[in-house]
């Protein structure tokens, strides 16, 4: 097809996306891709993750698939929900204090980001969860893409009431096909709510996994997130925590685990909108083979947001010489009385530590595993639910063993 008026040459992935968006009635989103194409390295926030190069094909929109009811993680007593090929379903009755429903349309705040436009453009109905005080079961949402290669855009909107406590786990799995998953989660924390939100990408390697998590924290709310990329060859998760109420605090954490041929990207933009809030973004990347791990972290502090305390950190551990670990910290600070910073480190397993363990009789492979686990401990140890922490350690061990 000749498009003399457009400077951007569109590939098969873009043509497919444009058709899907038009079919869904999302003409604006379709138009944006028609004009600009998928973001390339020339778009600043995609500099290290050139989608136009990395995403060569987008399969047809998913058809409803047979439900597979087994949750991805074995968490005793968890309340399990599934979203399979975009279709939400509930298993059993919800525990007291949890209300499951649906809301129309997408859940994400509009931003200048192609993946967000696509998600908002394609999602017609989102699953909603309302969590009142007094719920102590883990809520596990298994988001799956089953069957032949499919494109899925789904969304989840969660409200955790004032004073409520919740542990929410999302897993991304499915058949091993060239799926494209574009997932959205909007999570609002009421006043003094305390929430742990864990997401784990365990998709097959051929899947391209995209997720956007938006968080809204009211006064005194405490959030801990842990984003783990341990599946797809191409994974990118956006995190947008917004400290909207005084005293809010977020521990925003994430882990890229990449092996030969994989590319994982966590891109965060934290917004401190009011005075006296804090955030501690801590990310780690472990690479082996020829692979790439990216963490971008931007701290935005509004003019009024005095006494903001925020530090972004990314630590990389290279288990091979051929991998790339990339960090991009950014500070955008409009208030003057704040403590904000960023840092990044990158290295190999410490030889002296390894020798110390060997000298006590621990064989090399086991010693290396202990050190890698030690490197990650800072992310997993703060997860208070023991079964969940153990399940996450299990995922990490599986990844480590797969490389041996």
């Amino acid at each position, binding site marked *: 097809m000749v498009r003399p008026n457009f400077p951007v040459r569109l590939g098969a992935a873009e043509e497919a996306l444009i058709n899907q968006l038009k079919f869904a009635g999302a003409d604006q989103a379709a138009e944006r891709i028609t004009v600009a194409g998928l973001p390339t390295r020339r778009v600043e926030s995609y500099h290290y993750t050139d989608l136009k190069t990395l995403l060569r094909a987008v399969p047809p929109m998913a058809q409803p698939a047979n439900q597979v009811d087994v949750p991805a993680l074995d968490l005793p007593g968890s309340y399990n929900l599934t979203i399979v090929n975009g279709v939400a379903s509930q298993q059993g009755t919800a525990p007291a204090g949890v209300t499951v429903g649906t809301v129309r349309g997408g859940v994400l705040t509009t931003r200048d980001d192609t993946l967000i436009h696509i998600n908002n453009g394609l999602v017609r109905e989102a699953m909603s969860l309302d969590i009142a005080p007094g719920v102590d079961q883990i809520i596990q949402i298994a988001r799956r893409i089953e069957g032949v290669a499919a494109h899925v855009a789904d969304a989840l909107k969660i409200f955790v009431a004032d004073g409520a406590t919740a542990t929410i786990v999302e897993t991304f799995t499915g058949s091993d096909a060239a799926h494209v998953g574009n997932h959205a989660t909007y999570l609002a924390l009421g006043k003094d709510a305390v929430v742990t939100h864990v997401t784990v990408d365990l998709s097959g390697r051929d899947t391209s996994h995209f997720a956007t998590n938006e968080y809204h924290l009211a006064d005194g709310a405490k959030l801990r997130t842990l984003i783990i990329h341990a599946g797809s060859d191409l994974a990118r998760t956006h995190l947008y925590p917004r400290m909207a109420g005084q005293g809010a605090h977020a521990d925003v954490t994430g882990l890229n685990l990449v092996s030969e041929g994989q590319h994982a990207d966590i891109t965060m933009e934290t917004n401190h909108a009011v005075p006296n809030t804090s955030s501690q973004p801590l990310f780690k990347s472990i690479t082996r083979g020829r692979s790439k791990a990216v963490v971008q972290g931007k701290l935005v502090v509004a003019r009024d947001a005095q006494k903001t305390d925020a530090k972004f950190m990314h630590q990389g551990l290279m288990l091979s010489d051929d991998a790339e670990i990339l960090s991009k910290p950014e500070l955008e600070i409009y208030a003057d009385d704040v403590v904000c910073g960023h840092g990044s480190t990158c290295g190999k397993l410490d030889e002296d530590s390894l*020798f110390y363990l*060997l000298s006590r009789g621990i064989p090399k492979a086991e010693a290396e595993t202990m050190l890698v*686990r030690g490197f990650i401990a800072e992310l997993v140890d703060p997860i208070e639910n023991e079964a969940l922490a153990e399940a996450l350690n299990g995922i990490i061990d599986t990844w480590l063993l797969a490389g041996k």
Partner: protein
Amino acid sequence: MTTPVLEIRNLHARIEDREILKGVNLIIPPGEVHAIMGRNGSGKSTLSYVLAGKEDYEITEGEVLLNGKNIFEMGADERAAAGLFLAFQYPIEIPGVATMTFLKAALNAQRKARGEDELKTPEFMRLVKEAGAQLNVDSDMLRRPLNVGFSGGEKKRAEIMQMALLKPSLAVLDETDSGLDIDALQVVSKGVNSLRDGQRSMLVITHYQRLLNHIVPDVVHVFSDGRIVESGDKSLALKLEAEGYANYGGEAA
């Protein structure tokens, strides 16, 4: 003749292009405690690392037998399982690795390598408590990550506690006395002495004679510029303390 626990023959080792060990000869029979004294920089820690299997060194000549077996054919972990233990001059801090997890992994790895069954948790806990009590290593220290935030003295006590748990046939103690106050020195020495059983051998490396009042050696060796230059009984340590290392060449210590 019984097989020595340790036999070092004409050992030469270098790091990068620098020769550090220049022909070490040493035989330690079962049950004996030998001390090595020498000024800083003479190569004592290098000897301990070469014995334990640190990879930074190139062995250019000589051989080392542990209970009759050539250790240069074994990795560091295999040497440990074969009965070698090094108490580090500077124990390594390892954040994220819980001390208990580490102790259990070490003990069970050695047992496994020797064809013994792994220890069940209650049995393991009992052994750790026992060794811990002896060396004033309390449960608070055991709950922390390995050596992290330990004071100098706590690190040394933790090393000897590991030794008490792992029960090696040859313990190499590298300046275990440095950084210890007199109380800690007594605790550590008591721990070491309680492991002397007529079979287990020790190589005690120290800069000062003080330690040897507490851990009384059978033989004292003077180490200078990468080799043993004199050997004698424990009175040699007193002589060194009085006269310094000046008689052994190089600058004064």
